[in-house]
């Protein structure tokens, strides 16, 4: 019975989405963190998702028959977090305590509108995974009642 693996799959989805929500929160919190040089300025962070294939989980079965890309897959994983290399916002604010010699400060390349949309998308995806887990749970509970009056 592979109902148990649905829990793993939905769980991996929830982990990935909550990490995405985490980066979004960090980006929005730091949207106005100014600094005096391009190196020190906060840059928007984005997680990179990748699908887990079952052959990655048990390498002993790898290459067996034609099973390189076969199998239903085993969820999603976060491959890493990348910093956006979009251009930083340079503003002329000579009164700012962090202003450099020419009077410029650097603001992060966080697009707040984009982050908000991202936030909604990830929370929806999270909810979807919770729904899947609930369905799998009721399916499993149902099978336990097999043969009962």
């Amino acid at each position: 019975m592979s109902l148990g693996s649905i829990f793993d799959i939905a769980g991996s989805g929830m982990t990935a989405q909550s990490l995405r929500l985490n980066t979004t929160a960090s980006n929005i919190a730091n949207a106005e963190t100014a600094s005096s040089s391009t190196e020190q300025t906060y840059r928007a962070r984005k997680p990179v998702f990748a699908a887990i294939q079952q052959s990655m989980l048990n390498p002993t079965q790898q290459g067996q028959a034609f099973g390189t890309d076969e199998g239903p897959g085993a969820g999603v994983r976060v491959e890493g977090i990348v910093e956006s290399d979009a251009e930083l916002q340079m503003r002329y604010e000579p009164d700012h305590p962090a202003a450099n010699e020419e009077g410029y400060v650097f603001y992060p390349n966080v697009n707040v509108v984009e982050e908000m949309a991202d936030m909604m998308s990830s929370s929806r995806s999270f909810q979807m995974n919770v729904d899947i887990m609930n369905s799998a749970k009721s399916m499993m509970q149902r099978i336990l009642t097999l043969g009962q009056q």
Partner: protein
Amino acid sequence: MAISLDKALGIHQHALEGRVKRAEVLANNLANADTPGYKARDIDFQAMMEKAQEGMNGFGMTRTHESHMDTSPMGQDSELLYRVPHQPSVDGNTVDAQQEQTRFMRNAMDYQASFQFLNGKVTGIKKALSGQ
């Protein structure tokens, strides 16, 4: 006359197993709804059932070597196919979350139906065994 429990349960045990497998594939699609380049997949349930029916008729092939192809109904995922996307997306992902969720729910309902049938069979056998 020997009682074969395998035969007594009919196609329903295979159907239930197939439903579970499909639920797994659909859950995986939904978990990867935001993964760039991920291609949505699904199981050809009808083909799977036809295979199961063939296997029940007793003309199935046996595997005598581990590198033989598994032709059993729930064996190799030969019915695992890729979905044709309705609309292209920039990141190459072909998962339509709403559709997948609908399919998952429907699959769960079909699972319940299969379960009901299987449960009926089991209760019938139990009744027969108790001899009331």
